[in-house]
């Protein structure tokens, strides 16, 4: 976190003092620059999992024809390589993960669908986070009426079951694009970062380093974004990941009900078609199983990242897990 302060000149006595201590090696354990809480095993594993999924999505398009993810591009109902379907057809290497009811290649569906699902989450979480940062800082810093209104609104919005509202809205909309869906989901993604940031700002407002910065004549803006914000980083990151998870969850819910985007292949949409096509009864496990597995791995990766970030934010957890 010290690195965030190197890009602006040292102004306040407090920062001078901090720069002083930063130059001196503190304890033996901290000498190694790799020995930071950011390099905990949960966080790394999670990042690697999510990275792999995205990499397959990005590089996969180079090695595999993404057009096969659309209807009638391949033979129907083929099983993955090494398996035989109920009609006695064996899987071929032309469609290594098999194909489904209307001739979509499963591998292509995974390659195109996984990044799509992830993108919805990231867009919704980014919008929610930006709104949350603005509202959270305003509430925590300005206090008074502003705080009352923001707190009430976030208390209210956080209890609304977003999926229910989205179902009604999307049932009425004619066509939905991936980004429209992400923005609709973002309507419900701001309350939790807002609450989190407000709480942290309230507790940090009275802390020594903020008072010091105030005494040194730093502006409110500087205090908010140069002093407090860097300290909130692990919380913000955890909240961002939590929001991404929530947004993907909402998107999957809508897609599985058949309310997702119809023009682009999505993992939830694939599960919807699998349920509609009675994939369970026809023992076409690859049809529903592959998108389910991909999503499950994605969610486990996100959870690991979140747990890793929690350990950074809460040192007591770090001790407990060792």
């Amino acid at each position: 976190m010290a690195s965030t302060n190197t890009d602006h000149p040292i102004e306040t006595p407090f920062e001078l003092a901090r720069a002083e201590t930063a130059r001196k090696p503190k304890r033996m354990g901290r000498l190694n620059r790799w020995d930071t809480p950011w390099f905990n095993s949960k966080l790394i594993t999670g990042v690697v999992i999510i990275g792999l999924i995205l990499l397959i999505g990005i590089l996969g398009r180079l090695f595999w024809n993404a057009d096969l993810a659309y209807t009638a591009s391949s033979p129907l109902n083929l099983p993955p390589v090494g398996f035989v379907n109920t009609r006695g057809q064996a899987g071929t290497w032309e469609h290594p993960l098999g194909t489904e009811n209307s001739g979509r290649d499963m591998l292509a569906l995974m390659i195109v669908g996984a990044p799509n699902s992830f993108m919805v989450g990231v867009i919704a979480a980014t919008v929610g986070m930006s709104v949350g940062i603005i509202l959270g800082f305003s509430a925590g810093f300005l206090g008074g009426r502003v705080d009352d209104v923001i707190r009430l609104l976030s208390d209210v919005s956080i209890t609304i079951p977003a999926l229910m509202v989205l179902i009604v809205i999307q049932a009425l909309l004619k066509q939905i694009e991936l980004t429209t869906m992400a923005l609709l989901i973002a309507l419900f993604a701001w309350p939790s970062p807002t609450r989190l940031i407000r709480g942290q700002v309230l507790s940090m407002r009275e802390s020594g380093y903020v008072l010091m910065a105030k005494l040194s004549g730093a502006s409110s803006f500087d205090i908010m974004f140069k002093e407090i914000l860097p300290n909130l980083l692990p919380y913000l990151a955890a909240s961002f990941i939590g929001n991404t998870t929530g947004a993907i969850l909402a998107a999957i819910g809508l897609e599985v009900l058949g309310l997702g985007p119809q023009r682009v292949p999505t993992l939830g949409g694939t599960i919807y078609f699998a349920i509609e096509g009675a994939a369970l009864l026809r023992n076409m496990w690859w049809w529903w199983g592959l998108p389910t597995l991909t999503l499950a791995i994605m969610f486990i990766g996100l959870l690991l990242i979140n747990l890793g970030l929690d350990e950074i934010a809460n040192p007591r957890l770090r001790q407990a897990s060792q």
Partner: protein
Amino acid sequence: MGGITFGYLARRLTVFFLTIWISATLIWLIPRVAPGDPISAMVARMTRQAGYVENSDVIIEGWKARFGLNDPLPVQYLRYLGNIIRLDFGYSLAFFPTPVNEIIGRALPWTVGLLLVAITITFLLGNFLGALLAWRQTPRLIKYIIPLGMIFTSIPSILAALFLIYVFAYMLDWFPMIGSYARGMQPAFNMEFIASVIKHGTLPALSIVLVSFGYWTLGMRGMMVTVEGEDYMHLARAKGLNPFYVLYRYMVRNAILPQVTALAITLGTLVSGQVLVEYIFSYQGMGTVIFTAIRNQDYTVIQGASFFVIVLTALSVLIIDLIYPMIDPRITYERK
């Protein structure tokens, strides 16, 4: 409930009514600011799915009149709010003379029942395991086993539902695949029927419990670790109190409070998850009602059922909030 102050009660009730009002307004507003008129969009979809729809312009006009879509928007909005306050959602479009409320009424007990069972199990199990994880006296082995059981945590309940249905209903045939009780059975209050309900409800409940208890375990562990560092813990130990008494009266009692607040906050997500699970299992609750309605383009039912779920959630949150001061006496002294 003598401990609740007027200010606390007023604030909780404000949150409750605002929740309902904001949801109702969002539902009404967004489709209207979106391009295209919803009714024509619905007919267009019906045309796509079922081929030619006879007299589609008459249908459009009829529905427009039914919904009062020719009136100015503020009038429409007020009438809509009026209907919602009276919980009057009109008639089902797909099964015409049936009122939406009757359809909801049939499904509601199933949803509420499953929700209560699933949430109770999840909450108790999750917090119990979380407390064990953080407690010093817990055997090492248990501390290694619990995280293994949390492998499903964080994946959506709907995915767990698909997995469970495949393994335990399709492959092993231990549980039925769909429905809330055996087909052809008359709902009655006898052992046979109850057994059937339990058998049908096991997998849906399990898919909710499996994916969510881990959150409570993690949260509880975090809270327990925080409580562990408090001074009163040292005092309690120094006094030589029974470790079980310390665990229950000092640690769990304090650590559980934020968990109850978290329950109120995550209830919306839990309910949404359950609606989807019900749909996967064709469980006779709101999820199946909503999905059938989506399929039939039965807009009044989609709106009514979804709104009812929202009200149900807001009501549960209100109840939790009103119970909360009883378990945390400090809360009523909050502000003013």
